[in-house]
């Protein structure tokens, strides 16, 4: 291992002076450097996380008590719609693309992404798309308020969605182009730019999960773009794709949407699995258990994501055979997902664990994601979904699989790699405080929503019957604590960039990390250009036997 580091350091000393970043603000606009673009993606995602979070605070404030206190029902619907769109397309997806930009080249021994200029363009298209979407908030008739799923005929109705529809549609187009370009870049990089000695089955699991995710993105983003374009032509060019009066079918839209929508939720969770599989072995000081089965499980989850979409529509009025098929197909996903959870547990088993903030967030992810997965299994059963569908039980389910899963793992990734990126150590005490506040409040926030849903509270309502009052209040209190706690993360990010604890971090940062993945063999902070010559040896701890 040490030989690799030394070789790289020599190289770095020779070349670094001529290839630093451009000076000033222009650096960030015209950059083609994967680290700069990664940083842009991550900071943008963090900003959007707070924007989307602020919308969630509006929702929880209105639901704090029965009765309408703060907002009008249509604005409430705008908030639920925009909260989802901003969090999905503005926060979670870009954050993972940011991680991919930073980490994939460093992990596979590549000097940069395969298509650096396209990389820059895909970031700025993302910004354009999100701004276009956000501009609807300033319109007199308000932002889209028919739910992030844009179901027709509601979304086409003039008295519901005013002038926002075309803006939202074009925003989706821009976001889609951005995502597809990012995905092409990631695939091209992984296939072509690996260190010569790194075989596919030597790649860190984060790289594997992103490779599979990128294929999902290329497959489904055009479908979503097509669906919203059909909305656009229905609204403005008198087509009748989704209008029964013209021979169309509103349910057709739901089929198309969820053909995109279900893979989309795995687009947000597969890289999450990848990061968790990267962090847990480091702090357990053990190789990842079942590397090959992790790759297999990721691939099969991705495959199944294409053939289960209609479980989002069990109550829409499907033929019975359709319900049975989608029920069985959905249940099967529990098997590979279970394999992943068992593998993470087995990775921890008989390790020598320490519990720094990234590990704490990762453990919380495994536990709370499993809870979200188990409720997912419950609603996979069609007859049960006839009760759960469109209630707060569903809201609780998908927030468990997104907030203490994707968001927690993004936090973990931040704590894990910030010292490597910046060369500074974050403040562990504040990190742990952030973890405990988040982990406790996220459960106060979302766990009672299971009760609300089972007791009969529908989702997407701004006001509710009195028997739902108490748990809503508890949930809102949890929400406010969770929201405020995230300011600690913002503080830590800024503090770490500006010097953190002042402690000098080593190349490894975490004990033994260089046994797991290549980036830990690079100096901290990582130089602007890395792996200008590829490494000759790759850490392949997980496949030691075969080497």
């Amino acid at each position, binding site marked *: 291992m040490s030989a690799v580091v030394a070789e790289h350091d020599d190289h770095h000393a020779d070349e670094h002076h001529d290839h630093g970043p451009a000076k000033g603000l222009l650096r960030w606009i015209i950059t083609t450097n994967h680290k700069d673009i990664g940083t842009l993606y991550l900071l943008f995602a963090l900003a959007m996380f707070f924007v989307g979070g602020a919308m969630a605070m509006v929702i929880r404030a209105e639901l704090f008590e029965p009765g309408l206190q703060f907002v*009008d029902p249509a604005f409430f619907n705008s908030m639920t719609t925009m909260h989802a769109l901003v969090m999905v397309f503005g926060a979670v997806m870009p954050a993972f693309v940011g991680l991919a930009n930073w980490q994939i080249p460093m992990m596979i021994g590549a000097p940069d992404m395969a298509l650096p200029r396209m990389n820059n363009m895909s970031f700025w298209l993302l910004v354009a798309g999100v701004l276009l979407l956000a501009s609807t908030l300033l319109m007199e008739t308000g932002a889209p308020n028919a739910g992030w799923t844009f179901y027709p005929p509601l979304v086409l109705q003039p008295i519901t969605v005013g002038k926002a529809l075309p803006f939202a549609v074009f925003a989706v187009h821009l976001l889609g182009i951005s995502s597809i370009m990012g995905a092409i870049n990631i695939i091209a990089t992984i296939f072509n730019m690996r260190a010569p000695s790194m075989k596919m089955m030597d790649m860190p699991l984060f790289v594997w999960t992103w490779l599979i995710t990128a294929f999902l993105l290329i497959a489904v983003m055009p479908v979503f773009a097509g669906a919203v374009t059909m909305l656009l032509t229905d609204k403005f060019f008198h087509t009748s794709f989704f209008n029964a009066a013209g021979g169309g079918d509103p349910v057709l839209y739901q089929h198309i949407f969820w053909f995109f929508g279900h893979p989309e939720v795995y687009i947000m969770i597969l890289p999450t699995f990848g990061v968790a599989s990267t962090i847990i072995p480091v702090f357990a000081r053990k190789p990842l258990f079942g590397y090959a089965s992790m790759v297999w499980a990721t691939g099969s989850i991705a495959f199944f994501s294409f053939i289960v979409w209609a479980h989002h529509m069990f109550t829409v009025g499907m033929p019975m055979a359709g319900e049975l098929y989608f029920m069985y197909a959905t249940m099967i996903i529990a098997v590979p997902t279970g394999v992943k959870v068992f593998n993470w547990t087995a990775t921890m088993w008989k390790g020598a664990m320490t519990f720094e903030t990234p590990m704490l967030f990762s453990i919380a992810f495994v536990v709370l994601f499993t809870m979200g997965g188990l409720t997912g299994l419950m609603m996979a059963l069609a007859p049960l979904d006839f009760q759960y569908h469109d209630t707060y039980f569903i809201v609780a389910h998908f927030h468990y699989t997104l907030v203490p899963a994707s968001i927690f793992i993004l936090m973990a990734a931040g704590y894990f790699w910030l010292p490597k990126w910046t060369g500074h150590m974050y403040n562990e005490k504040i990190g742990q405080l952030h973890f405990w506040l988040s982990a406790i409040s996220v459960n106060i926030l979302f766990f009672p929503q299971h009760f609300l849903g089972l007791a009969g509270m529908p989702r997407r309502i701004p006001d509710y019957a009195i028997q739902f009052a108490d748990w809503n209040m508890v949930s809102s209190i949890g929400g406010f604590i969770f929201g405020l706690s995230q300011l600690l993360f913002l503080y830590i990010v800024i503090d770490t960039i500006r010097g953190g604890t002042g402690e000098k971090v080593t190349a490894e940062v975490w004990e033994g990390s260089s046994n797991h993945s290549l980036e830990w063999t690079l100096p901290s902070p990582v130089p602007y250009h890395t792996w200008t010559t590829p490494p000759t040896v790759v850490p392949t701890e997980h496949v030691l036997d075969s080497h």
Partner: protein
Amino acid sequence: MNKIKKLSVGVTLMTIGQQAAHADYALNLMQGVTKVSHDIYDLHMLILWICVFIGVGVFGTMFYSIYHHRKSKGHQAAQFHENTTVEIIWTIIPTLILVGMAIPATKTTLELADVQQSEMTIQVTGKQWYWDYKYLNNDIHFESHLDEASEIAHRTKGADPRSVKNYLLEVDKPLVIPVKTKIRFVLTSSDVIHSWWVPDLGWKKDANPGFINEAWTSVDKAGTYRGQCTELCGRDHGFMPIVVIAMEQPDYDAWVKKTSEQQKQKPDLSNQSHDQLVAHGKSVYLKNCVGCHQIEGTGVTGLIPAITASPKVTGGIDPLIGFLQAGTSKMPAFSKLKDNELAEVITYIRNDLGNKVGDEIQPDKITPVYDDDNDEDDKNKVAP
């Protein structure tokens, strides 16, 4: 079980300091009052316990490991990273559990889908934002709106929802059905997608415009069962509840007789005083207009015109009648309103909601209706 629920919620209550008097708490799925809803409840409990069992196993192992296999206790890390036998076992066992779950789930799915041999049929039409019920066997047909107390309370700043009986879960005319009778529902919509859900019946079903869905129920126990629309259907999605009253057969027969007779009655078109017209008009307004035009007649900026100071409202009465009956591309036609209701609501909107025309129209002056509305948008519309 129930006591534990009440107790735990009671503790929460005390800390929050709200009155517990009329709240009906639940933490778990309700068992419901039909065979299907019981089957669903049993299936729910079965899966819940399986999930709890799996969770305890996985989390127990994990926490054992977190406690014992930590570096601070001097535990040395093992370096194993594969075990084919174990991996096969934890693939096969979950698969078998899933097959075990799929069998009862399939049975219940088949049961839910079987609408055959039903004894009566009710057509449910979702509309923004109320339900329309039509008994296909005996011509009973009525609309079911959120009741006035809730309607006013949720639209009034500072109103106390806790003082309203069954806040947001009460309607003016509930759906009445007989017990122990297999009832087929055909569901559709006249505008956007709605979804009809009464948890006690065990299912919800979407009401799609232009298409008809089927579902069925057979209620075991007489009683009142409440539900809500569960598909986002616009600004008042949260305000279109469902109330089903299940009656013993004789009571139901009496209700049918009474309701049919009421429906055959001609509307009372006798003259009313100005104040009566305005007061009754407010009720008509709260049922039919308030969802869009709002409780103070302000409309919604950029989307829905205000009634206050609208020349259409304060101009001639005859064009206004035609306008209400014909509708526009945005506003549905209100030809369903009886002459007395039209007279009442017209008098109301001309003399309240910030308007003061000072006149009135009596029910018997409503007909004949003609449309000489000179608004450009509506020129081609013809009154029915």
